[in-house]
Every structure is written in structure tokens, then in C-alpha cells.
């Protein structure tokens, strides 16, 4: 292992996460005069939404932000995962096979969201995946041409992913939208005045899906197959249908990645990290922007990123110019939330034998016998595996109304070797604080 302290680097501002929010924050703060270091754990910048397909270039808006960050002199580290913090001002970052210590004066958290995965019989079979996840995999070369796909779940991501898959040559037979027709109709009537451009987007999406059945008020109840998926059963609450398919792509919504805010003890709200008007968190010198402050889509992420960037640079006047636009986008997000709320029936999909914790193969029967996340961890090892509970704990928040357990490092998955150095330093720091 390399010496964890071998490489050090200081910056005025460290931005965690190079999605739309992080890129906008970094570029804005650098344009306002700060020395900025931007970290992203993937080899790609721009987050899931701006990831280019194989051989393709990133969308134009992404290129614009990358160019701005570049000409403002932002230092960008791709494939750099921040996984631990040592008070008061050191971050531990895994970069390839190295571990670096980064000293920060100010920090902007923009680590985004991940998909919510809900357990149902057969959901662990190969080729049952997240819809956003499948889209990312296809962008990285996963073949879908000629494959029969069912897309299930809720919200605008369903249509976006289905349209993308059709363009890539997949046969999308059905889109199962768990929200009812009436919820959708209500939403559409409000959408018109809220954001005409979004309505137009939705309409053009639909036209690419002429051969696909769009089924509001339907949801999957079981996936079938021996070593991989070969059919899915879905329902509208009364009838059931079974459809042969090669892939089932599920999009039950997104959840903010709250491990970093949790590690720093930032105050949370039911929507995500609490922030004030200037995107400041409850922690000293820490701002937050994008999906981690509440889901709201790419436009809101960009606006919040710019506010946080300006504010971190002390340019509150410029930050305040974005307040009205942020408020409008937040109203739109709230409407989306209401329309695409998950129905209670989805809580009853797992059977006693359904595996809920995929890392440790813990069944619904074992988990139901527990009173909370702590007990489930203790008695069943639920949430103790490689994903650190990201998949099962977010599912259990929905299924059982259990709140998340508090966060210990690492805040992101890294190699064991990387941890050893950070742990030692953390222990040393704690020791020196003793009287």
C-alpha cells in the first residue's frame, strides 16, 4: 500500500461530486476567485445524466460547464472517491491505488442521488436492474439491441429511459407506471403552466414509444427465471399479466446520498440535507447543492450549484439573483413528488422468502421480526455487506418506515487498504483531543 500521507493537497474549496450541481458550483466559485478542487469517484464527469454513450460526446450543456470549469482553473480529479473526514480539515480520498489527504477550508457537497430499489419476488435475478442503472450500463457498452425490455416504476425517468432504450434498438413492450391515470391527469394539467418546455419534452418522448404500451396504475409483482430473468408478472391491483422479457428495468424513484452529510453530522430534513437560502448546511464551512438537498432534477441542481458556488466565494449578491428561479423549480419538483408518490401496495410485494438485503441474503421473514435498522443489523446482518446498506436500508425506509442508522466511515466504498490509513489517523486525532 502507498503511504496514505504521501500526497497532500490544499484548496480553498473542495467540491465533492462532479455531477451538474458540483460542476456548476466549482466553475462558479472559481470564476469568483477561489482555488477549487473538484472530486468525482467515476472516470466520467457530469454525473449519470450527462454520461456520454460509447463513442459519443457529452451533451452540449455538459460541454459548456466543463469548459467553464476548465477556463476558470478548477483542478479536476476524476476517479477520486472521498471516503472519510478527519476533523477539522482533512479529507481522505482514494485515487486509483493511492490514498491522498486533502486539506479544505470550505466544502461543497454535491454527491447526488441513487435509485431506490424495491424488493419483490425474483428481483435479485440477473437482468432485473435499475432503469437509470440500465441506461448507464448501456452508455458504457451494455448490449440491448433486440432485447425485450419491460420498464416499470414511476415518474418521468420511466419515459426517458424507455425512449433511450428504443433508440438503442431494444424492444420495449410495456411501461408500467404505478401512478394512476387520475394522478397523471392532475399532474399534466398543472404542468402546463409550471414548465411548458417540460410538457413538450414529455410529448416528444411519447412519440418515440409508439409500439410500447404505456400502462398507468400497473406495477410488477414477480420476476421469473432460473439463472436469469425470462418473464415478469405485473398487476393493476385486480388482474395479472405475465410477459416474457429479457430485461426488467425498474425506476421507483431516487434517494439522496446522505452518507457524506451524515458523516459530517449535517442536519437533515425528510427531503435531504437541510440548507439555508445560500445553500449553507448546518455545518460550519460546508455547503450542499443538487439532489442531496432534495430531489429536483438537473435544472434545479445547476441553479443550486451556482448559488452554493457564489456563496462559498462570499458573493452573496450574485447568489441571490438565482433565488426566484430556484423557487420556481422547487415548486415543480414538489408537484412531481406528489403525483408520483409510491402506492402502499408496493410495500406488500416481498414474500417471506424474498431476499431483501442482497449482500447478506437476508430474507423479508428475518427482517420483519426485527424492530428497527439496528436490530436488523445485529441479528440478521442486514445492511452490513458491501453496499453498506445503500440498497436495503433505503428500501426499508419505504417498507417499514425505518429511519437510517447513523453513518460511520467509509462514506463511499473503497479498498480495505485505503481504510487502514484513514482509521489510524482518525484514532490519532481522537487521542490528541483527550485531556
Amino acid at each position, binding site marked *: 500500500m502507498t503511504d496514505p500521507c504521501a500526497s497532500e493537497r490544499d484548496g480553498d474549496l473542495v467540491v465533492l461530486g462532479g455531477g451538474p450541481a458540483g460542476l456548476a458550483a466549482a466553475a462558479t466559485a472559481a470564476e469568483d476567485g477561489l482555488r477549487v478542487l473538484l472530486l468525482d469517484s467515476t472516470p466520467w464527469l457530469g454525473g449519470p445524466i450527462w454520461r456520454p454513450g460509447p463513442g459519443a460526446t457529452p451533451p452540449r450543456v455538459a460541454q459548456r460547464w466543463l469548459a467553464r470549469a476548465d477556463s476558470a482553473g478548477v483542478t479536476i480529479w476524476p476517479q477520486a472517491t472521498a471516503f472519510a473526514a478527519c476533523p477539522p480539515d482533512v479529507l481522505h480520498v482514494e485515487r486509483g491505488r493511492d490514498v491522498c489527504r486533502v486539506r479544505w477550508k470550505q466544502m461543497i457537497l454535491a454527491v447526488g442521488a441513487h435509485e431506490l430499489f424495491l424488493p419483490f419476488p425474483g428481483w435479485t435475478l440477473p437482468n432485473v436492474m435499475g432503469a437509470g442503472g*440500465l441506461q448507464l450500463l448501456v452508455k458504457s*457498452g*451494455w448490449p440491448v439491441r433486440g432485447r425485450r425490455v419491460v420498464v416499470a416504476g414511476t415518474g418521468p425517468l420511466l419515459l426517458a429511459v424507455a425512449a433511450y432504450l428504443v433508440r438503442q434498438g431494444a424492444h420495449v413492450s410495456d411501461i408500467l407506471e404505478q401512478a394512476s391515470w387520475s394522478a397523471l391527469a392532475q399532474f399534466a394539467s398543472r404542468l402546463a403552466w409550471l414548465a411548458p418546455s417540460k410538457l413538450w419534452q414529455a410529448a416528444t418522448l411519447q412519440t418515440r414509444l409508439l409500439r410500447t404500451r404505456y400502462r398507468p396504475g400497473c406495477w410488477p409483482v414477480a420476476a421469473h427465471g432460473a439463472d436469469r430473468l425470462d418473464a415478469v408478472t405485473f398487476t393493476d391491483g385486480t388482474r395479472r399479466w405475465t410477459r416474457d422479457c429479457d430485461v426488467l428495468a425498474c425506476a421507483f424513484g431516487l434517494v439522496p446520498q446522505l452518507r457524506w452529510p451524515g458523516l459530517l453530522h449535517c442536519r437533515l430534513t425528510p427531503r435531504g440535507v437541510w440548507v439555508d437560502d445560500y445553500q449553507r448546511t448546518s455545518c460550519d464551512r460546508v455547503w450542499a447543492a443538487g439532489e442531496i438537498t432534495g430531489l429536483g432534477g438537473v435544472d434545479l441542481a445547476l441553479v443550486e450549484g451556482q448559488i452554493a458556488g457564489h456563496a462559498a466565494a462570499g458573493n452573496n449578491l450574485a447568489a441571490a439573483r438565482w433565488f426566484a428561479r430556484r423557487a420556481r423549480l422547487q415548486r415543480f419538483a414538489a408537484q412531481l413528488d406528489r403525483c408520483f408518490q409510491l402506492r402502499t401496495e408496493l410495500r406488500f410485494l416481498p414474500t417471506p422468502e424474498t431476499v431483501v438485503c*442482497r449482500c447478506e441474503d437476508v430474507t423479508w421473514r428475518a427482517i420483519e421480526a426485527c424492530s428497527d435498522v439496528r436490530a436488523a443489523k445485529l441479528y440478521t446482518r442486514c445492511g452490513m455487506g*458491501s453496499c453498506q446498506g445503500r440498497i436495503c436500508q433505503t428500501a426499508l425506509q419505504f417498507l417499514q418506515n425505518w429511519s437510517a442508522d447513523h453513518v460511520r466511515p467509509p462514506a463511499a466504498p473503497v479498498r480495505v487498504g485505503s481504510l487502514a490509513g484513514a482509521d489510524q489517523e482518525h484514532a490519532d486525532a481522537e487521542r490528541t483531543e483527550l485531556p
Partner: protein
Amino acid sequence: MTDLTIRVNGRPLRVPTGLTVAAALAMADVPAFRRSVHGQPRSALCGMGICAECRVTIDGLAHQRSCVVLCREAMEVVTDD
């Protein structure tokens, strides 16, 4: 796009550059990337390094999340099956 060659469970596979290991395994039609603790077949779920279901052994290093690793020339990938 140029091609490169990796080995999947000992067999050579030509892939375009820029592919993730997960995508390469799907191209090679590997159904299960790993076996769960009770031996169930598993493959990619989240596509973004969160779920750890896509873990494989890469160049001798176990438990690598194949959805966030790009293929490199002469890479050795081993799955559980």
C-alpha cells in the same frame, strides 16, 4: 474506436475502448457475475458503483465493481461461474 483484448474467465474477448468491464461481460453473455452468500446468481443492478452486485475479480484483485472499471488491454477478468 479502436479495439482491445481482455480475457474473461480465460477466454479472449475483443471489445471497443471505453467499455466498462460490466458491459464487456454482458457482451460475452456471462449471465451471473457473482454468486451471493447463498449461491444465488447475481449481476449488475445500479450501474453506478453503489450496489456491489457486479463484483468480479480483475487482474487478481477480488471484489472489483465492474460497472465503474473501464477495460484495459490484457485485463484478466474472472467471474464466480
